[in-house]
């Protein structure tokens, strides 16, 4: 009998044969193995070099970045009153502290889960790599700002995060469930600091990157649970619930986002009872983004729900779990895990689609980038390329960061599949 089958984990691992090549041989084998490949290599190298030269020359020599330098605050917050900027800094400090504690608690939980209370496995270097794209964006902002004060403040925020993370590591896991609530509370606190007690409400003057990030974050936070509910509703055994959800999803998915934005901006008044206050343009834009994204999230999540075998539901039912708990503890976790890539893709789309709100008159990042080229000192100078490249870089930083976080999450949750 093959005894290895009884103890499949005891099979000694044998490393595959190693194959190392000298650099010279590597080049010959991979780039110049035939005369045709050699020609291709030379041609592509020339093309690549030319493109790099063009881009490098534009970024470092030709581009007139002074338009970005002068308008840095406009790009970040646009019309946000300059006297109240301290509120944004204060908010960021609160968030840094809260997310730092959260990260610490999460790291400790993960460590204990994997057994062994040894030293933390995540070094500060890993954290820096994880935040790489965001740090790159922040670095470029600071480079343009050339402000000692700003740099010190950003470094202080990072320091607060680090200290908070260290504090979070000291929290024993049995208290960990408070951490989630704490982070939520801190988000509310940061919001209150910025908007209340003489502050500026988000629809009363937020703009630039601030508005972009807010629309994306709030959009994700609201559309995700809404989408999950719609997906569950679509599979409901109650015909009324099912029909409402299907109708909603199919209607919204059949309409371009721009149409929804226009509908929200110009036609909402017709649907509201007469005499009621019309919500601000910002609110209407957010509602349109949320309604649009929720329909797509619903279909993505439905795909995940269908991927969970019926056996899983039966096993949970046989144990006496109620339908609600079966969904919440057994079906949804497996369904969501299966659709992380698609889900994050949808959220990245939402992040970039926030730029569309500029056509109904909001001045988020893209709108500001366009507007500043019309300032008297830059008018007719043709600097739109500079501002668009810069805005594109900021969008890329956010998107790439989300994409990498999604891959990390997949690896982390995929632990059972190994």
């Amino acid at each position, binding site marked *: *009998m*093959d005894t290895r*089958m*009884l103890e*499949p*984990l005891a099979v000694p691992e044998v490393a595959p044969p190693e194959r190392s090549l000298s650099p010279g041989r590597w080049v010959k084998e991979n780039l110049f193995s035939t005369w045709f490949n050699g020609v291709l290599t030379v041609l592509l190298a020339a093309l690549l070099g030319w493109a790099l030269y063009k881009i490098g020359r534009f970024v470092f020599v030709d581009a007139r970045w002074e338009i970005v330098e002068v308008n840095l605050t406009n790009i970040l917050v646009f019309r946000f009153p300059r006297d109240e900027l301290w509120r944004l800094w204060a908010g960021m400090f609160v968030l840094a502290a809260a997310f730092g504690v959260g990260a610490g608690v999460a790291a400790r939980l993960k460590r204990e889960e994997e*057994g062994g209370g040894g030293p933390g496995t995540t070094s500060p270097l890993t954290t820096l790599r994880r935040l790489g794209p965001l740090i790159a964006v922040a670095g470029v902002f600071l480079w343009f700002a050339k402000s000692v004060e700003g740099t010190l403040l950003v470094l202080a925020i990072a320091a607060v995060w680090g200290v908070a993370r260290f504090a979070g590591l000291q929290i024993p896991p049995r208290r960990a469930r408070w951490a989630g609530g704490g982070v939520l509370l801190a988000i509310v606190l940061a919001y209150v600091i910025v908007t209340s007690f003489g502050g500026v409400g988000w629809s009363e003057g937020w703009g630039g990157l601030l508005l972009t990030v807010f629309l994306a974050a709030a959009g994700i936070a609201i559309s995700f649970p809404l989408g999950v509910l719609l997906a569950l509703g679509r599979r409901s055994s109650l015909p009324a619930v099912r029909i409402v959800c299907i109708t909603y999803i199919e209607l919204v998915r059949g309409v371009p986002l721009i149409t929804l934005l226009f509908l929200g901006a110009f036609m909402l008044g017709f649907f509201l009872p007469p005499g009621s206050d019309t919500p601000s343009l910002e609110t209407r834009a957010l509602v349109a983004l949320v309604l649009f994204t929720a329909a797509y999230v619903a279909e993505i999540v439905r795909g995940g729900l269908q991927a969970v075998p019926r*056996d*899983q539901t*039966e*096993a*949970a*039912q*046989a*144990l*006496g*779990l*109620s339908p609600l*708990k079966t969904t919440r*503890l*057994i079906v949804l*976790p*497996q369904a969501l*895990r299966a659709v992380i890539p698609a889900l994050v893709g949808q959220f990245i789309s939402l992040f970039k689609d926030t730029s569309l709100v500029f056509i109904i008159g909001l001045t988020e990042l893209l709108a500001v980038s366009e507007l500043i080229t019309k300032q008297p000192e830059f008018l007719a100078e043709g600097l739109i390329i500079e501002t668009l490249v810069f805005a594109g870089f900021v969008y890329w930083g956010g998107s790439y960061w989300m994409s990498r976080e999604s891959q990390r999450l997949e690896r982390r*949750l995929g*632990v*059972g*599949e*190994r």
Partner: protein
Amino acid sequence: MTETELGSATRPGGTGEPMIVLEGVEKWFGHFQALAGVDLVVGRQEVVVVAGPSGGGKSTLIRCINRLEKHDRGRIVVDGIELSDDIRHIQEVRRETGMVFQQFNLFPHLTVLENITLAPRQVRRWPKKRAQQKANELLLRVHIPEQAHKYPGQLSGGQQQRAAIARALAMEPKIMLFDEPTSALDPEMIKEVLDVMEELASSGMTMIVVTHEMGFARAVADRMVLMADGEIVEVGTPEHFFVNPREERTKQFLSQIL
């Protein structure tokens, strides 16, 4: 108890006290009749093994007992609770009834320990510590205490099925239903699962086991049931069933399987 008494489908074995009562149970899937009037009474602490050709209604029968399938006609009473559309009765029966599936059906996103503690904590509302203590006892009982913190995907088939048995036992059920628990296993893993089931049977658990493992049936069953075409063809003690079957259908089945 004499042989003829045990040969009756409606006279319970075990302690003689009826634990599961089925009266004229019928079940259709569309136009296909899966159960065509089944009468069976299982006694407390009795082990009943159900055998028969595939498609004969064995799985459907035990899936009706914990309401994974809804029966269309007849009565099913489990430990004094009649199964009806009343969700409270269904939940009550499910709490008292453990089930082990052919494909194990462990929850892949939870560790073995979490698989086992989930239902006691969520359904019985046990504190975490008590549930974990129970889980560790059970893992010892099914001989895989070292696998507690692994995920199901990291275990062999036999280990997974034993973890699934521990998961069902964690609810401290009065009845265990086994739906072909060794059919999906590699041959060398069957024995480790059957051993656990045998230990369970000798501890006095009321069990209904659908299986093709006739060696196990002969050693453990109090009564054998042969099902075909949605009906009970023959009921009897293993001695009677294997050595001296009455029905032609039983002889035919045994000649194919032994």
